[in-house]
C-alpha cells in the first residue's frame, strides 16, 4: 500500500486505469442484465466526453463550452458519411473523429486571442449556430421513403445509417459488444488523459498557471499548447459522439441541447475540475443520481442545479479534491 502511494503519479494512474479496466472487463460475466450493460455503455460515452472536456477546461484552463458541439460534429459526421456515402460505420466513425479534430482546431484558432469569459461565449455561440442551422433547415436535400430529409437531417435527425455489425456477429447479445467497444474507448481516452496531464503538455499548463512569467520566459507558448489540447481532445470527443450515434442508431439535434451540456459540465465540476479521475467519478455519480431522480422526474432539474451550485460553492476542487486533502 505504501509502495503504491509512493509510485510516480503517472505510473500510479496508469496502474489504476489497468485495474479498473480489468474489473470492468469482468462485469458482463457477472451480471448480464441488458439494463445494466446499456447504462454502463452510456456512462462510458459521457465519461469520455467529460474527461476530454476536463483536459480543455481544467488542465489547459480554456473556458470552452464547445465540447457538446464537437460531440455533435462527431455524431453528425458519422451519420452523414454513412448515410450519404454509404461508408462502413467503423470507417465513418474514424473519419468523423478526424473531421471533429479539424472543426475543433478552427474553433481553437478563433479563441486564441480571447480571454476566459469571451471564450465561453464565443464557443457557446458557435454551438448555438450549429444547432439553429440544423433545426431551421427545412429544405429537402433528398427524399427517402420516410419523407423529406434536409442536408443536416433537420429537427428529426438521421436514422438507419447502419450499425457496427455486432448485431450480425453476436445476435441478441449485441449490447455486450457495444459495452466492450465503449469500455475500450474510455480506456483509450483515459490513458490519453493521464499521458497529457503528467506529460510535457500538462507540465507546460501547470507552469503557465503557477508562474506565467517564468513559463513564457522559458519559451512555453500558450497558444501552441492550447491548439494541441483543442485538437487532441476533440479526437476522442468526436469518437464518443460517433459511437453514441452508432449505439442508439439515431443522430439528432438533442446532442447540442443546453441541458446535456450542463449535465456533463456538472460531472466535471462535481468530480473535480482539472483532476485526473474527477470527471469519471463525477460522471458515475451524476448518472447514478440521475437514475435515482428519474422516479421524481420533475425534481431532476432542480436537483441538478442545486448539486452544481452547491458543489462549486462548497468544494472548489470537487470530490477528487476532497479525497486529496484527506490523504494529506
Amino acid at each position, binding site marked *: 500500500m505504501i509502495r503504491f502511494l509512493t509510485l510516480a503519479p503517472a505510473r500510479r494512474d496508469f496502474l489504476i486505469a489497468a485495474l479498473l479496466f480489468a474489473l470492468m472487463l469482468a462485469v458482463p460475466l457477472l451480471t448480464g442484465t441488458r439494463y445494466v450493460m446499456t447504462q454502463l455503455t452510456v456512462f462510458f460515452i459521457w465519461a469520455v466526453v467529460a474527461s476530454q472536456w476536463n483536459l480543455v477546461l481544467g488542465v489547459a484552463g480554456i473556458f470552452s463550452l464547445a465540447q457538446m458541439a464537437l460531440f455533435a460534429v462527431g455524431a453528425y459526421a458519422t451519420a452523414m458519411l454513412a448515410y450519404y456515402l454509404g461508408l462502413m460505420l467503423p470507417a465513418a466513425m474514424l473519419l468523423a473523429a478526424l473531421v471533429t479534430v479539424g472543426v475543433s482546431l478552427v474553433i481553437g484558432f478563433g479563441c486564441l486571442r480571447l480571454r476566459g469569459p469571451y471564450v465561453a461565449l464565443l464557443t457557446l455561440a458557435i454551438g448555438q449556430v450549429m444547432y439553429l442551422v440544423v433545426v431551421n433547415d427545412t429544405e429537402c436535400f433528398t427524399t427517402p421513403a420516410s419523407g423529406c430529409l434536409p442536408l443536416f437531417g433537420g429537427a428529426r435527425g438521421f436514422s438507419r445509417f447502419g450499425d457496427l455489425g455486432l448485431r450480425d456477429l453476436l445476435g441478441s447479445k449485441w449490447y455486450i459488444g457495444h459495452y466492450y467497444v465503449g469500455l475500450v474507448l474510455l480506456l483509450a481516452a483515459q490513458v490519453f488523459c493521464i499521458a497529457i496531464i503528467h506529460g510535457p503538455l500538462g507540465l507546460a499548463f501547470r507552469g503557465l498557471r503557477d508562474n506565467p512569467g517564468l513559463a513564457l520566459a522559458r519559451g512555453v507558448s500558450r497558444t501552441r499548447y492550447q491548439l494541441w489540447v483543442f485538437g487532441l481532445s476533440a479526437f476522442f470527443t468526436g469518437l464518443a459522439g460517433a459511437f453514441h450515434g452508432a449505439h442508439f442508431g439515431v443522430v439528432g439535434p438533442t446532442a447540442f441541447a443546453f441541458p446535456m451540456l450542463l449535465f456533463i*459540465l456538472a460531472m466535471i465540476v462535481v468530480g473535480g475540475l482539472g483532476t485526473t479521475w474527477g470527471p469519471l467519478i463525477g460522471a458515475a455519480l451524476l448518472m447514478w443520481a440521475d437514475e435515482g431522480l428519474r422516479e421524481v422526474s420533475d425534481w431532476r432539474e*432542480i436537483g441538478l442545479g*442545486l448539486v452544481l451550485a452547491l458543489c462549486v460553492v462548497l468544494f472548489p476542487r470537487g470530490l477528487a479534491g476532497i479525497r486529496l486533502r484527506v490523504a494529506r
Partner: protein
Amino acid sequence: MDVALQILFSGLTLGAVYAVSTIGLALIYGALNMLNMAQGGLLALGGYMAMWAMQAMGFPAPLAALTAMAAGAVAGGLIFLLAARPMLGGEGFETRIFIATIGIGLMLESLILKAFGPQPQAQSLRLDGGLMFGRVNLPWQNLLIFVTAILMLAGVALLLGRSRLGRAIRATSMNREAAQLMGVPIRRIYLTILMLSGALAALSGIMISSMSGLLPNMGADPMLKAFIICVVAGLGNVPGAALVAFAIGMLEALIQYLFGVQYAFAILLCLVIAVLIWRPQGIFGQKEVVRL
C-alpha cells in the same frame, strides 16, 4: 417608407428590451468579474411574477411590475449572498461563479416550471391597440416598452453618474482595492449591484413576455443575446452595452425582415463571432495589457 418605419419601430422596441437586461449584466461583470448565467431565470421570474401579481393577487399593472422587480431584486441579492459572497477572492472565481449561476438559473427555471406548468401563457401585463402612422401600426405595448426602457436607462445613468452610490459603484469597478481604501464597503456595493441587476432583469422579462408570451425557459435566448451585447460592447462597459443593445435590436429587426425570423438569431451569432475574432476585446473595450 412604410417598411422602414416598421423596422424602425420593432428595432427600437427590441433594442430597449435588450438594453434594460444588458446593463445589469454589464454592471455585474464590471464590478465583480462575474458572468451571471442565472439571468435567463431572472427574466422568466420577472415575467411570471407580474402575471401572478395581476391574476392571483389582483394587483394593478404598475404595482404588479413593482412586485416583479422586487422579486428579481431579492433573487439577485440571494445569488450574491449564497453563491458569490462565499467564493469572493478565492481562486478561479470567474469560472466557479459562472458554473454556480448556471446551476441557480436551472433551479429557478425548474421551480417556475413546477409552479406554473410547462404550457405557454400570455402575459397579463400588456396594452392592446395601437397608433396608426399611415399604414404602419405602432402598438401601444411597444411604445410603453420603449418609454419605460428609456426612463429606466436614464434613471440608471443618473444613479451612476450623479449620486454618491453611483460613484462608489464606478470606483469599485475601476479599482476594487482603491475603493476599499476609500472606505467603500464593497460587499454592500456588490449586493446592491446584484439586486439592481435582478430588478432590471425582471422588468426586461415582463417586456419580453408581453411580446412573445410566458414560458419557463423564455429567458434562454434573450440571455444569450444580452451576453452577446456585453461582449460586443466590451465586457463591463455599461454605456457601450446600452448603445450596442439598440444597434443589435435594429439589426435583428432588419435581418428578420430580409431573411426571415428563423435565421435572425443564427446570422446575429455569426456576426458576433466575426466581431470577437476581429476585435477580441469588444468594440469599445480597451486592449488589455497583461503585466507579469
